[in-house]
């Protein structure tokens, strides 16, 4: 646990120093979105990487967080922080309620059910025009502020969002190192065995599902207040697949891997213009290739590479042994 905390502290230090080392305002802006996507990817990874339960409906929770925050503040004039908390709680309750029937399903059926849920929510965003603004989007969401500190520049948004992202990562690291984390991994390997050992698998799965939905909802609220404009296309099936790809690239069950995956898939399209035309081809290929050849993701890849390099220098390896 202590090693994990040191690792986390180092990582957090790097994240907090990054803005000082870059000049371009645009890169900083993109890094804000890396932070939001990191939250989402870590949330999905808790469910997928640790408990072994797939969800193709994450974009729906993300969108619900964004729309609830947006509507409560812009239409009803609520305080953004209250709206964010209420949105997170509402998303959590919804996830908890649908979690019981949905997580009874396994594998392909779970994927289909979560996808169906995601599409229903997406249709509501599009069709409930009076409230959501429909396909043309919803604008005028106010920015966040803390006393006199208004989060209106990229630098301020960066610190706000990465603070949240780091908190989520810390929570995830803590969770996975705990008794709950071990129980989740047991469910991943064999649900029957986990239940025999006294793990309340059903409840635990729903709790993790709820937890990842709340994280997604929070990320959605932050997105809405940072961008101030939201439209349904951000929260479609395509984004759920993008999140899945981030988690798979980084490595199932690796918190830092999720951050790496989020960073790669957010930065690449910004800096490779051609990538935008090919993005779904690339996601498809990545999903297939990673699952086939490197199921542990890039993080496992680096570990293998590191071990391979050590083996290439027999003198050193021998001394260690």
């Amino acid at each position, binding site marked *: 646990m202590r090693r994990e905390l040191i690792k986390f502290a180092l990582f957090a230090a790097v994240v907090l120093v990054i803005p000082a080392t870059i000049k371009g305002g645009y890169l900083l802006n993109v890094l804000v979105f890396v932070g939001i996507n990191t939250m989402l990817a870590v949330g999905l990874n808790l469910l*997928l990487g640790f408990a*072994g339960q*797939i969800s*193709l409906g994450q974009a729906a929770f993300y969108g619900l967080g964004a729309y609830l925050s947006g509507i409560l503040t812009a239409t009803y004039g609520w305080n953004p922080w209250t709206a964010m908390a209420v949105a997170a709680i509402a998303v959590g309750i919804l996830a908890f309620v649908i979690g019981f*029937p*949905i997580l*009874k*399903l*396994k*594998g*392909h*059926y779970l*994927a*289909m*059910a979560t*996808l*169906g*849920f995601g*599409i*229903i929510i997406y*249709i*509501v965003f*599009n*069709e409930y025009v009076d409230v959501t603004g429909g396909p043309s989007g919803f604008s005028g969401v106010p920015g966040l502020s803390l006393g006199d500190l208004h989060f209106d520049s990229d630098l301020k948004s960066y610190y706000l969002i990465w603070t949240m992202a780091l908190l989520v990562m810390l929570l995830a690291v803590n969770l996975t190192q705990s008794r709950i984390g071990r129980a989740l991994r047991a469910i991943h390997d064999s649900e029957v065995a986990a239940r025999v050992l006294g793990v309340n698998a059903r409840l635990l799965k729903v709790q993790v599902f709820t937890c990842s939905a709340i994280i997604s909802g929070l990320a959605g609220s932050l997105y809405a207040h940072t961008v101030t404009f939201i439209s349904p296309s951000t929260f479609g*099936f395509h984004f759920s*697949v993008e999140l*899945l790809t981030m988690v*798979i690239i980084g490595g199932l069950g690796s918190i830092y891997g999720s951050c790496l995956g989020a960073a790669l898939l957010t930065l690449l399209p910004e800096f490779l213009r051609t990538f935008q*035309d*090919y*993005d*779904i*081809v*690339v*996601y*498809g*290929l*990545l*999903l*297939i290739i990673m*699952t*086939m050849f490197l*199921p542990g993701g890039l993080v496992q890849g680096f570990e293998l590479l590191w071990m391979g390099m050590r083996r290439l220098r027999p003198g050193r390896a021998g001394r260690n042994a």
Partner: protein
Amino acid sequence: MDFSQQLSQYLLSGLATGAIYALIGLGFAIIYNSTGIINFAQGEFVMLGGMFGVYFYTVHQFPLVAALLLAVLCAAASGVAFERLAIRPMRRAPPLGLVIITIGGSILVRGIAMLVWGKDTHALPGFSGDEPIILSGATLLPQHLWIFALTVLLIIANKLFFQYTITGKALRACAVNQRAAGLVGIDVRRMVMFSFLLASGMGALAGIIVAPLTMTSYDVGIMLGLKGFCAAIIGGMSNGIGTVLGGLLLGVLEALGAGLISSGYKDAVTFIILLLILFLRPQGLFSRGESERV
């Protein structure tokens, strides 16, 4: 137009789209029964059918029958290639890996279709014109008749194939118990490949015959695929009449929902039905057997 006329109109158009869902659903059931996989990419082969149909029939002006056959062949070949390249190497993978592989395959196929044919929506002319036929107050397009005729033919052919041919019986044996099928000399791997061939071919045909009614584009696969899956789920993943009934039921409910409630929420109706069935009766509406789906 009075209410009963309206109702018969919804019923007719619902049955036609339902027939399409039934064909797609049969594809899901065939692959599920031979491999235990829900092929997430099934909808993409439906899309490929429609797109290849447009490509051969309207772009290259092939005669109708030749264009149909070529389009089905091309889509079925893609199905086999998908099985060979992505599914077979992963036979021993954990279920989660297979889920992700088929999702990856599905968006890969969609992406390639987008690169090749662009993002535009393509129209396919009706097979025998677009002159509407009036039938007891309801309007019917000749394409609807094509859909009914081809679906009935295909379902009968499917039934005969599984009942009377040696390959069909071998496929059924694989569905019951793969290891036992292997022991009596059935080449299970070939049968799995064959089931992908059948499923993608049937899906492709569905994709072509529906294209004149709904148009087609690179991204229609996901919706059609999910609705086909919903049909198969209602039918309890049976490779027969259950799935056909499931498709027809879904088509009619969707048409009624669109007509009587709101056309914007038409697709939501399907997914609410899908979730309800998965939550309450995952073994399907028509079977009483135990299910491994939960």
